[in-house]
């Protein structure tokens, strides 16, 4: 049961295609994140949903309401869309008190005074702002300001909440705390969230589904678990979590690491679908590599060049030919020391074409 629908949405700025033929649907009450490096078009997409940017092509729907469609010459301005929105730079108004900031959308809707007060106070309570309500938001911390922005967006009880990197201006520990506050508010109010971020852990923690985007093109839309465990391509693999890539040559179906003299795992074979490629890339996550014996036929031989103790984990750098692998192990597993030769085996490796 889809609620927000983007159909063939495309945005061009001159010759530059910022968003290319985007399609997705978001369910009611779903938390949907758009994730990608800066400049990938995620914020532009959100602004098209909000109505701050026109679409070049395509349609945006909410429920059975068409919001934007250049083909049908239809455009609902942002103020008529009934969304809640929170911006990265807070955008709380310094000349109004916290209370008036939150009451603003209700006053615009010309509700009666009693209802305005009741809904404003509800939103302030939900965001723990009651004690600060009469002061200027200028005196609040970053987290406080962002709560005001959240309360203001909540006050109209929107069906859809648009969050544009709402936590990027906050301190790291506050960021984690606010993440869960947003999630709690969603549970309580039941709105859908479209969440834009470049922080993968934020997207993972909050979202029901994540859209990974690169240069205006969708790479994958899936649950956080599937995105992590079954990345659709090399970009998604590298963008989510830590990653290692070993470049190898395809020598008649056998993958060979250049300038590497030691043993390669017995299963180091280029998969069928990449048979036509001469250069392939072997991908693994540092936490999904185990040390093994030198005799293990599945072992890749190399030399440890660095070992760093990071608290919970120990971070190893291992030289393979003239490339390096990163291996992370729990601190209780005693591993090899720098200078030692060693062998590792891969729990869940992926193969990609080198120039994908």
């Amino acid at each position, binding site marked *: 049961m889809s609620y927000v629908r983007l159909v063939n949405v495309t945005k061009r700025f001159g010759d530059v295609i910022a968003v290319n033929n985007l399609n997705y649907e978001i369910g009611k009450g779903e938390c949907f994140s758009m994730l990608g490096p800066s400049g990938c078009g995620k*914020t532009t997409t959100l*602004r098209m949903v*909000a109505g*701050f940017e026109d679409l070049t092509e395509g349609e945006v729907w909410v429920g059975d309401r068409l919001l934007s469609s250049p083909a049908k010459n239809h455009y609902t*301005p*942002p*103020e*008529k*869309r*009934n*969304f*809640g*929105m929170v*911006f*990265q*730079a807070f*955008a*709380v*108004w*310094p*000349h109004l008190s916290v209370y008036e900031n939150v009451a*603003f*959308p209700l006053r*615009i*809707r010309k509700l009666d005074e009693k209802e305005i007060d009741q809904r404003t106070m509800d939103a302030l309570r939900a965001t723990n702002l009651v004690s600060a309500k009469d002061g200027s938001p*200028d005196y609040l911390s970053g987290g406080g300001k962002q709560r005001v*922005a959240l309360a*203001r*967006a909540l006050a*109209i009880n929107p069906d859809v909440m*648009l969050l544009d990197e709402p936590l990027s*201006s906050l301190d790291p520990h506050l960021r984690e705390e606010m993440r869960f506050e947003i999630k709690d508010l969603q549970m309580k109010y039941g709105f859908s969230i479209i969440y834009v971020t470049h922080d993968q852990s934020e997207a993972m923690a909050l979202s029901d589904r994540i859209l990974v985007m690169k240069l205006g093109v969708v790479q994958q839309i899936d649950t956080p678990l599937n995105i992590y465990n079954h990345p659709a391509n090399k970009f998604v693999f590298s963008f989510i979590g830590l990653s290692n890539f070993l470049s190898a040559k395809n020598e008649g179906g056998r993958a060979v690491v250049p300038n590497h003299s030691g043993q390669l795992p017995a299963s180091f074979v280029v998969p069928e679908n990449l048979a036509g490629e001469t250069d392939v890339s072997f991908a693994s996550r540092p936490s999904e590599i185990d040390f093994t014996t030198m005799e293990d036929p599945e072992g890749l031989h190399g030399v440890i060049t660095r070992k760093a103790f990071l608290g919970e984990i120990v971070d190893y750098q291992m030289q393979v030919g003239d490339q390096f692998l990163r291996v992370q192990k729990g601190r209780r597993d005693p591993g090899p020391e720098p200078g030692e030769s060693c062998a590792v085996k891969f729990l869940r490796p992926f193969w990609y074409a080198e120039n994908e």
Partner: protein
Amino acid sequence: MSAVKTKSSFGVAQLILFLSIAILVVIVAFPVMLILFNAFWVGDQFNFQGAIEILQQPATYEALRNSLIIATMSTIGSTIVGTFFAWLVTRTDLPHKTFMKSMFLVPFMLPSFIGAMAWKMLLSPNAGFINRFFMDNFGFTGPIFNIYSYLGISLVEVMYLFPFVFIQVCGALERMDPTLEESARISGAGLFTITRKITIPLVLPSILSGALLIMLYSMAHFGTVAVLGIENGIYNIPVLIYERIHQSAGSFESIRLGTVLATVLVVSAAFIIWLQRKILGSGHYQIIGGKSFRPMELKLRGLRIPMMLFCFAYIGFTIVLPTVVIFLVGSLKTYGLSFSPENLSLDNFKFILFEFDVTRDAIFNSVSLGFTAAIITMFAGVMISYVIVKMKVRGKGILEFLGMLPFSVPGSVIALGVILAWSGQFGINIYNTVWIILVAYIARYMAFSLKANSAALEQVHDSLVEASRACGATMWQSLRDIVLPLVRPGMLAAFFLIFLPSLRELTVSIMLYAPTTRTSGVAIYTLNEDGETVISAALAAIALIIIVIGQTIINKVTKKAGV
């Protein structure tokens, strides 16, 4: 965090502080003190009653009233015009916005008294070209507009002063975080509501601060009123001070009258500055945004082309027309001839540049005075700013207070103050020499230098000096190798901020000039007063050319220096 805190540099710090205080005291504080002293002490006695009596004389009361009327009208007019154009070029889809914006800033560099001269030529009741044109061709029996009036004077001031508001409001609107308005929009507010409830309240401090600047400037402004008011008996405070001192060749009575009026100016200026700081302090919100999405643009739709034509008409009428008139009149053989090709030539320009010693000297005086004042003020300013911004030494508070003074002392007050201080009463008599003008210029422009240099110094974080000290450099080496190169753009800006305005300075020079020490501003003004309209216009035209060339060089240089 203090940059200077070791024992060895303690003595040096005190020395710099002392030197800075001494400069400000001698150049600014002492002359101002003398004015206050002379206003209230006659002989050996405190005489407050006398000051009140002077203010009650019809002429002084009239001048006070006129200053207030003209300043109020100019301020209101400039604020409306400035805010409107600022909104138009930042928040609408007006065509040719960038061009319009640069044109609206042009009046900043044009001397307003030259503009006033042009408007006198265009709209004086009987001889003004526009008035004549309507009387001759359309059967008007009288002038269509008399520029010799409160309204006329105020309108001319608006043309030259509105950029103060324009630039402040443009800056605020451009830097304002667009999401402040977007979040109102997503809350359901339409553009009109957003403008009324969000945008205007947020830029109000900038509007008011610009308006107060105009008020301050206009109250103490000499040129426009001197050119347009005297004919009809409209004097304001600076004009009355000048007239009285000039006519009586510096008699005791006139000086006393001057000091009382100057005191009024100083007090009102101090009040205005205080008010401005209060407004900025209480309401200067952090509205600068992180992301740079374009702010919403109001679609003017059907008004787009009419608005563009209106802007072009405004620019043509207030900037191009007066400039053209100055150049045309400056090329006439005799004033009164028609602008037909046979009556126009370059002879006047040749005459004033190569033959007429008054104008030749005036140009030389202005350039050398401007250059010297700019150099001295630039270096003094960087030193004083350094103490104020960077050093933690005892007694800095005095310096901070003294540093505020130049901002609040109008030009005619400075001129009067240096007359009192440097005409022999205290052992040094440089009255009637070029040096007294130099001293007055330094006092007048110290504020510009302090502003530019402190802005530059605030950008230099203390840790940069600390890093240099940690690398083994001494305090002096750090200053020379780290701080100085980083504030050089600020110093350069200060130099030009002083050099260019001093080329066209009138308010101070007119009170201090002697026959051989006319500046170009004085020469233009006095030649015009003596009826040498054509020569005066030609000199004004040359001054305009120099100023425009200078401004172009500045823009190039400062852009390169990244100021």
